[in-house]
């Protein structure tokens, strides 16, 4: 009985003073979103070339104007694509949207335009400098001894691969802007297990305080997971868990696994919540009151 491994979380305190936890976007998703966006930038630029050059070839527009438009547009698209979308889609670019990622302000305020600009102005340096360092070390630091060149390459590498070296996967732009990239949150509200229909409960089963004090919050929430799971393995899992709990509590009585577990869940939750209200949180079965 173990819970799924905890994902990297980051607390953001809202202006109301309530901390909300976001899941940090994994590095792989970030890279995938970036590649998608880069492809889109490429597609936009290519999409501009074709009609422009068609116009130029037909002589409808002077070649000078065509080239100028192209250079300007390519620069603007490349430099402001990310900032434009993050500003108008509240922290998402098409790539981030596809991957379910989002930029948020790490100190809990609104995502401001300055922050979006700051995190995107460093993008080119972060992307191109490490590539340059890897492909053409000589150009970065001409005429320097090999050891100095190596150090320069290592530094540029750190500059670009910074997200891999910190817990919140912050890149340089995120540090400058005070932003963090998180998973777009999403969870469904399921039925309250303690409020199960009468038919699903065992009507005449009850537990003593001593029996309920065997387990803590961790076990309660694992039990919740077991009860909520779907699929063919469910029945077997319920039987195994019920048998284990009965053995542990010394519970005797002929009750089917599911009604027993639902009743036990409700009773245990009632007991633990009651204790919690009185300031005595019982984290898990190893917890002892001092």
């Amino acid at each position: 009985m173990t819970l799924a491994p905890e994902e990297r979380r980051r607390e953001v305190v809202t202006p109301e003073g309530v901390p909300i936890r976001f899941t940090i976007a994994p590095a792989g998703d970030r890279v995938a979103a970036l590649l998608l966006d880069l492809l889109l930038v490429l597609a936009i630029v290519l999409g501009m070339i074709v009609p422009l050059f068609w116009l130029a070839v037909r002589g409808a527009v002077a070649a000078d104007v065509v080239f100028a438009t192209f250079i300007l547009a390519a620069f603007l698209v490349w430099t402001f694509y990310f900032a434009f979308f993050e500003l108008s889609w509240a922290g998402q670019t098409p790539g981030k949207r596809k991957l379910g990622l989002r930029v948020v302000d790490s100190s809990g305020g609104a995502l401001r335009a300055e922050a979006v600009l700051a995190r995107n102005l460093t993008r080119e340096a972060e992307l191109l400098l490490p590539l340059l360092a890897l492909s053409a070390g000589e150009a970065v630091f001409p005429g320097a001894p090999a050891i100095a060149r190596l150090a320069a390459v290592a530094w540029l590498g750190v500059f670009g691969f910074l997200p891999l070296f910190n817990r919140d996967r912050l890149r340089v732009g995120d540090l400058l802007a005070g932003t963090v990239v998180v998973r777009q949150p999403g969870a469904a509200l399921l039925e309250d297990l303690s409020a199960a229909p009468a038919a699903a409960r065992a009507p005449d089963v009850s537990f003593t305080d001593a029996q309920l004090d065997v387990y803590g919050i961790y076990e309660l929430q694992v039990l919740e997971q077991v009860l909520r799971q779907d699929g063919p393995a469910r029945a077997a899992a319920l039987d195994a868990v019920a048998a284990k709990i009965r053995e542990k509590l010394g519970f005797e009585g002929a009750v089917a696994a599911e009604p027993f577990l639902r009743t036990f869940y409700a009773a245990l939750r009632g007991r633990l919540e009651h204790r919690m209200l009185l300031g005595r949180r019982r984290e898990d079965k190893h917890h002892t009151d001092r």
Partner: protein
Amino acid sequence: MPEPTVIPTTLVSPASTAPPAPAAPLVLKSAAFRAEREASWRELEALVRAAGTRGAAALPPRDLARLPGLYRHAVSSLSVARAISLDRNALEYLESLCARAYLVVYGTRRHLRDAVGDFVLRRFPRAVRAHAPHVAVAAALLVLGGVTGFALTLADAERFYAFVSPEVAQNRGPTSSTDALRDVLYARKGAAEMLTSFAMFLFSHNARIGILAFAVGFAGGVPSALLVFANGLTLGAFAAVYHARGLSLELWAWLLPHGVTELLAIVLCGAAGLALGQALVFPGRDERLRSLAAHGREAAVIVTGAVGLLFVAGLVEGVFRQLVHAVPARYAVAAAFAILWAVYLARAGKERA
């Protein structure tokens, strides 16, 4: 809506076989709490879904008016639920609902058009004024680089090649004839054909360098300072070569109409890089990362403004300079730009006392 549950009280001892009294049913406090508030959570969830990626702007006015109340209600529910409920699913749902609603309520709020106007009229000049010391240091570095490059190249013309890369020199140098040097200052026929695209090329090239000067400020500001200084060296070396031929007056007439704007932009980008370096190395009372974030945003404002300045400079350089050859006219335009930027940066967006 699920019916409230009757839970056997835990006060029944194992010895007692009496069934729990149905007269005193115990509904979990957390379940009752949820039953009471669930409808408002669902309503908020529907609003958040309707808002989609466009944020609160996508909502009809009636829903928009409901949003803040529902959001605060959900956030307070989350606070209470954390204190009284152990229903993991409900907690996770509330957490994610609040997070999604938070993104709608506190996402970027303003329309892009308003943001651009506000930026030009207020944010950019204010950010520059707030960084006056950094701008002064960056300007001093540029001048220092210029004087150094000028003096060294004047003393030994060979040093020109150390300060100016071949791409920038474009065959100009100490060995060029005076006529060739002068020709560059007054573009002859032929060069005038691709004016606009040349202007745009200059703009995008310079803007990249400016953005780079800002980004590398992350390394303690040193590379930014070096970039500004190196720009000064190049400029000084050119000035020395032209000075040796007695072309100084004409060189500056050629350089300054766009140079005023371009050098200002380079100084601003350098200042932004220096501000970043300062925030990182000397964070003051703030936590280092917080200081970096606060200064990074301001610096980004300066750099974005500088990119706009470079666009203007590119237009002047690519078009005006090739068309107007009279030296007094060139100086007049340079002076006009200098006054324009000085007044704009010093006055725009100032709070009236």
